[in-house]
């Protein structure tokens, strides 16, 4: 867990009312991006260096004489009771995007990683898997503008976050634990990626283009946007293209198979039907090709997503209900693993996967005296299918085929309600989610495959999911207090329930799903104390999860390995219980109006009922950041690090991870030409070129070494 001061950090020390705040976050610029095909890499590398040098000189020579608006955004905003953190991905105040972040045009993964709450499990340079409260994919709910979407890779190589890009997002909303239940059943929390929309602001036609480069992996990024917005109609379009070669870890060690190439196109449009009625639609197309996964035995030749939605909004509804919002959506993800570029594999194989989701939600709010109600119904239908074809060394032998996800159809219908009650100096929030989830193993071939292991297995099953939570926030003499207690459960994921011989390279075991498992249930308590003064604030917070029927793979010595070279087979089982807790302390101090220091330190622990360490639990982590911001210039020095990972578990493939500390520096400068703006940002990460890996690095693949980057954004108003 590390922390950058330069991107917007939002403290939740002041009490506010959620409805007001959500609207505040919702106004964003429209945009469109233009991409250029990449040039020859070698010449680019050289030219990139020259380019950087020139820019550095230009930057320093002009520091003194520019006048522009302050970059800072949302600085003093306060988080609603249900949010832990909001990561601002682009600024809504300016067509120049991303400059609030220390590294504009970095991948969404890097944006998320810079958050206090989110960690990222890393299998390569691309498509990192978000971790919240030491819990990942199955235990957290990741949505795009409230839409459910599920990756199509059985090996978690395509988390939902890999199918959007910073070009089309405005913020990432992070809710911890059951506070995330609004978006779907969850244990660890929710991550909602909000799309950027012009939202009928009278900005007219606005365009921008951006480009960036990095030395650590010879990355080139090109982006552009073109937006039109007036009071009755808006359309935002954007495009971003990234290409990166293998990156170099500390000491110049090249990490093979860490290249990637991706592009993302999106369009949003809205039409104001009448004063209080709005119709809007969004569409995103994302495609990554030739993505290397150095920590895994296979790469990805294609990861592609189509994501679309249509929404209707009207201010008045019936009775006292208002702000009625309804959305229907659909998305399709195609994912193809590929080992054709690996020189030594025991057997060649193809592993394509498909995931399609159709869903809706409809919600309305009601204000009644000191109550703010929100009621919501939602549902989704997901089909997950994945297959594996292996090609024997002997060409006369037939290929070997199996279904690893047997076309599992998940139908979830849910009801959510919350009431935020103002009580004197405090706010009490009560919320509940009730859902019915059906699984249907639709493919006979896959169903018969699973029946080999579970002869009594039924083709369909129904589960009831429930969540209830209370949270209280109050202002006291010296500090603010927030505390909550909640209970929630989740159904097993497709892999956990129905996966068939899914290889996990982390612990070198094949995993088999278990359709007979109980739902995983969590009882959660959390508390936060914060002191906010004009010059500084301090937050101390902690949460504790008591999870019963914790789902994890355990070795089944009866089963024979499928993957050549695997150590054994694990079958998902319910552990009796697990305990997880996270404690963190963060502080912020404004030394001068332009100069700010912040620091964070966190501690995490996860064990099962026998005191066994759970996998992927962070060691002590810390960060410190010094940020300077005047009207046109910004500078930022960051340190982050972690202690030695002592509480690891070899049973899950973990080993001890050494402590590390890395530093980075960025400088940003804004120039103006009449109405147009040019923003340049330069930086260096891992200044001392340290060779290191963290506890989230799959099979200890090292992180990037010293990396220079530069980005240039140009906005035409």
């Amino acid at each position, binding site marked *: 867990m590390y922390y950058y001061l330069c991107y917007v950090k939002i403290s939740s020390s002041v009490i506010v009312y959620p409805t007001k705040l959500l609207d505040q976050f919702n106004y964003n610029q429209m945009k469109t991006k233009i991409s250029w095909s990449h040039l020859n890499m070698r010449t680019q590398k050289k030219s990139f260096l020259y380019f950087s040098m020139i820019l550095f000189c230009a930057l320093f020579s002009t520091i003194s004489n520019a006048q522009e608006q302050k970059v800072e955004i949302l600085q003093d905003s306060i988080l609603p009771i249900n949010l832990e953190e909001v990561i601002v991905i682009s600024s809504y105040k300016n067509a120049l995007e991303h400059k609030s972040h220390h590294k504009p045009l970095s991948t969404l993964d890097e944006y998320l990683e810079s958050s206090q709450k989110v960690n990222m499990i890393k299998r390569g340079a691309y498509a990192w898997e978000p971790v919240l409260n030491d819990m990942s994919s199955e235990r957290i709910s990741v949505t795009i503008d409230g839409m459910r979407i599920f990756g199509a890779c059985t090996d978690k190589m395509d988390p939902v976050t890999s199918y959007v890009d910073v070009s089309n997002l405005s913020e990432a909303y992070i809710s911890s634990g059951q506070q995330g239940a609004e978006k779907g059943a969850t244990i660890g929390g929710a991550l909602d990626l909000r799309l950027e929309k012009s939202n009928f602001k009278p900005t007219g036609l606005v365009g921008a283009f951006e480009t960036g480069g990095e030395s650590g992996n010879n990355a080139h990024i090109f982006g552009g946007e073109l937006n039109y917005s007036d009071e009755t109609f808006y359309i935002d379009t954007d495009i971003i293209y990234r290409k990166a070669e293998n990156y170099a870890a500390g000491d110049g060690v090249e990490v093979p198979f860490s290249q990637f190439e991706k592009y993302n196109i999106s369009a949003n449009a809205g039409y104001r039907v009448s004063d209080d009625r709005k119709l809007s639609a969004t569409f995103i197309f994302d495609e990554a090709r030739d993505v290397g996964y150095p920590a895994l035995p296979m790469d990805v030749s294609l990861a592609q997503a189509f994501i679309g939605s249509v929404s209707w909004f009207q201010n008045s509804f019936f009775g006292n209900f208002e702000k009625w919002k309804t959305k229907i959506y659909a998305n399709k993800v195609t994912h193809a693993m590929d080992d054709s570029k690996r020189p030594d594999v*025991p057997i060649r194989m193809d592993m394509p996967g498909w995931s399609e989701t159709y869903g809706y939600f409809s919600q309305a709010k009601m204000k009644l005296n000191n109550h703010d109600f929100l009621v919501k119904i939602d549902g989704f239908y997901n089909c997950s299918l994945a297959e594996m074809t292996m090609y024997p060394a002997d060409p006369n032998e037939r290929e070997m085929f199996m279904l690893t996800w047997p076309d599992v159809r998940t139908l979830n219908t849910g009801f959510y309600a919350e009431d935020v009650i103002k009580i004197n100096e405090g706010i009490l929030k009560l919320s509940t989610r009730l859902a019915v989830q059906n699984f249907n193993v639709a493919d006979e071939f896959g169903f018969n495959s699973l029946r080999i292991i579970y002869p009594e297995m039924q083709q369909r099953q129904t589960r009831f999911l429930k969540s209830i939570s209370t949270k209280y926030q109050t202002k006291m003499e010296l500090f603010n207090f927030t505390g909550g207690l909640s209970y929630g459960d989740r159904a097993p994921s497709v892999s956990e329930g129905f996966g068939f011989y899914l290889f996990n390279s982390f612990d070198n075991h094949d995993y088999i799903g278990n359709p007979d498992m109980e739902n995983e249930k969590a009882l959660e308590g959390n508390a936060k104390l914060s002191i906010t003064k004009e010059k500084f604030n301090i937050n101390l917070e902690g949460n504790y999860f008591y999870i019963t029927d914790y789902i994890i793979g355990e070795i089944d010595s009866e089963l024979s390995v499928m993957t050549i070279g695997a150590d054994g087979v694990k079958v998902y089982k319910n552990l009796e219980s697990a305990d997880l807790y996270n404690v963190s302390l963060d502080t912020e101090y404004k030394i001068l109006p332009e100069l700010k220091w912040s620091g964070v330190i966190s501690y995490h622990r996860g064990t099962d009922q026998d005191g066994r360490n759970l996998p992927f639990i962070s060691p002590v982590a810390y960060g410190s950041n010094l940020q300077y911001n005047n009207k046109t210039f910004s500078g930022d020095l960051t340190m982050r690090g972690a202690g030695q990972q002592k509480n690891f578990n070899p049973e899950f493939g973990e080993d001890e991870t050494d402590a590390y500390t890395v530093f980075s520096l960025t400088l940003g400068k804004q120039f103006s030409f009449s109405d147009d703006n040019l923003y340049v940002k330069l930086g260096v990460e891992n200044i001392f070129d340290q060779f290191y890996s963290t506890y989230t690095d799959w099979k200890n693949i090292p992180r990037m070494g010293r990396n220079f980057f530069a980005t240039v954004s140009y906005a035409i108003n």
Partner: protein
Amino acid sequence: MKTIKFLFATFLFSSIFISCTDDTDDPIIIEENPLAEFNILTSSKANGHIVEVYSEQQQYTIGYNELFLRIKDESTDSYVSNAEISWMPVMHMTEMMHSCPKSSIGKTDNASVYKGFTVFQMPGNTDEYWDLTLEYTIADQEYTVTERIEVNSPMDGKKRVNSFIGSDDSRYILAMLPIVPEVAVNDFSAVVFKMENMMSFPAVTDYKIAIDPRMPSMGNHSSPNNEDLTYDSVSGFYQGKLSLTMTGYWKINLKLMNAADEILKGEEVTEENEASSLFFELEF
């Protein structure tokens, strides 16, 4: 427009009608030619009869062959019901002759179709050949016909029969029944015969066949929840369950155990010993 609608309705109706009549016609067609779906392997003309041998397979194959017989009376041009038939396949080797395991010949639901099986241990070649002698009785009159047959190795070259000397010094023949393998738990059957002498191969009914399916191409991956084969007196076969976790080439390693659970042939598959000397093969 009305005409089009009418035509469309007529078309729909008639297609439903036609498909319905197709269904009801089916049994009649089977009545007329109950073995239409099978391949005729040999047709022997003798004694004013034509004796036809049918099989699901394209050829006489080493291993288990389920065979259907019909006898046609040439004078009446009709198939004979209620004949008593016995048979004797014989291999004419350069130095000796021997037979092979076989069932008795029984009747099927259709009185003019007879059924039995043979288990050929070896294929014929240019110098050595099989012939099949059929003795049948129609209306107390005995007839005999002998036809030379061509027994080939299976087209896919996969092993479906084992002929071996067990640890009790007896010679056994172990054959699997045909299977349409699926990625599932499959019913799996086999037959075991003991060679008493060159011409006599009685069935063995109190042994056990342990199975261990493996995929040599997948690091000898095995499948769970297999069931060893035990004798089922109703079907007359050894029956068990065979789990196949994926398509491809499977080697089904075997151990044949006698009533006292002593291993007559076959070895346990371990890290060191990749396969048993007694096995069947499947590929799909």
